[in-house]
């Protein structure tokens, strides 16, 4: 019985080693190969201090230059995906945004930035959550574009010019649909896509305008 256990361990380790080698080799030659170490999922926060503020406009993804937004709001903290945003350099973002594996390089905006765009009607808000959640309540004027049915709903965007500022959001906190949606949209050619990372939860708790499906639109 001892020999049996030993054999199990030896064979088990052998199989795992074989699989690791096969996996890594195949991944290296495969067209769809991915980097073995996943880069931390990163979003680039649009600056609120001005250090990054205007250079992001160069890529067409920044805050509108003519905006005079005052960002004094406390940034959302304690978020799983939050990155040291001031440290993300432009070159790095642009390089990584070509990596289809991860939605990177799409700028994220804070509640105050989102609300500013909302008030000035400068952006189209896109709800990345499931349609049923959208119906229960969404940011006023937002369009439902569930990420899981992206292709089906993408036709709704057909008429929008590619330089429309699009703001995606989902529940906030633990959801990444908004990031994925933003990434897909930027792949589709939209140049000014932003992720409102605080999402629905933060919007509601700030008592900003919402509507339900049966409300009348403006």
């Amino acid at each position, binding site marked *: 019985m001892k020999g049996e256990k030993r054999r199990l361990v030896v064979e088990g380790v052998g199989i795992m080693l074989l*699989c690791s080698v096969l996996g890594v080799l195949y991944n290296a030659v495969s067209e769809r190969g991915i980097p073995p170490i996943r880069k931390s999922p990163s979003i680039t926060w649009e600056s609120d201090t001005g250090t990054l503020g205007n250079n992001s406009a160069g890529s067409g993804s920044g805050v509108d230059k003519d905006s005079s937004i005052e960002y004094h709001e406390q940034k959302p903290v304690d978020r799983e995906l939050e990155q040291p945003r001031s440290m993300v350099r432009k070159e790095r973002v642009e390089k990584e945004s070509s990596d289809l594996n991860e939605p990177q390089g799409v700028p994220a905006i804070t509640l105050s930035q989102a609300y500013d765009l909302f008030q000035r009607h400068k952006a189209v808000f896109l709800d990345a959550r499931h349609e049923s959640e959208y119906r229960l309540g969404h940011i006023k004027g937002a369009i439902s574009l569930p990420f899981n049915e992206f292709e089906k709903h993408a036709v709704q965007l057909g008429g929008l010019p590619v330089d429309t500022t699009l703001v995606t959001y989902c529940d906030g906190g633990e959801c990444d649909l908004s990031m994925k949606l933003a990434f897909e949209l930027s792949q589709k050619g939209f140049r000014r896509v932003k992720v409102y990372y605080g999402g629905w939860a933060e919007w509601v708790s700030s008592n900003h305008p919402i509507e339900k499906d049966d409300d009348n639109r403006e």
Partner: protein
Amino acid sequence: MSMKNGLIGRLVSNKYLLLASRFVLGFVFIYASIDKISHPGAFADIIANYRILPGFVTNIVAIVLPWVELICGLSLVVGLFLRTAAVLVTALLTLFLASLLTSVIRGLDISCGCFTVTTDAAKVGPMRLAEDILMILMSLHIAVFGTGFAAVETYLSELEPTERRTRVQR
């Protein structure tokens, strides 16, 4: 083994039933591995959505895990390193079950990534748990009663009887 007496004992140690378990589980694992091997990026996203593993290992798991499924599936079907494969599969399924359970408990609305990596595929939920438990029973079945019936390792052992026969025949 005392369980080999009695009706149930005879049924579960029946070599045809064991062969059926091997084939069903083996082909399920092979099938499940193909889509993941061909779409590592999508599979990595699914793993990340479970929010269990630290982010940096997600990709390496997405690269290696489907191959473990494939090789174990093949092992079960052809009957080579049968018991080891069955033990590995049991371990994998247990890990999957734990991941599914934590997702259900935390109320994550994510796709399972069990058999395919498409986002609109099966969501994590009770059905997935049931499937997983059923497969754990099958893999335990093989691990405990695995015989050399219709297995490549039996034919290999016949080539060098003195050394291998003892461990294949139980």
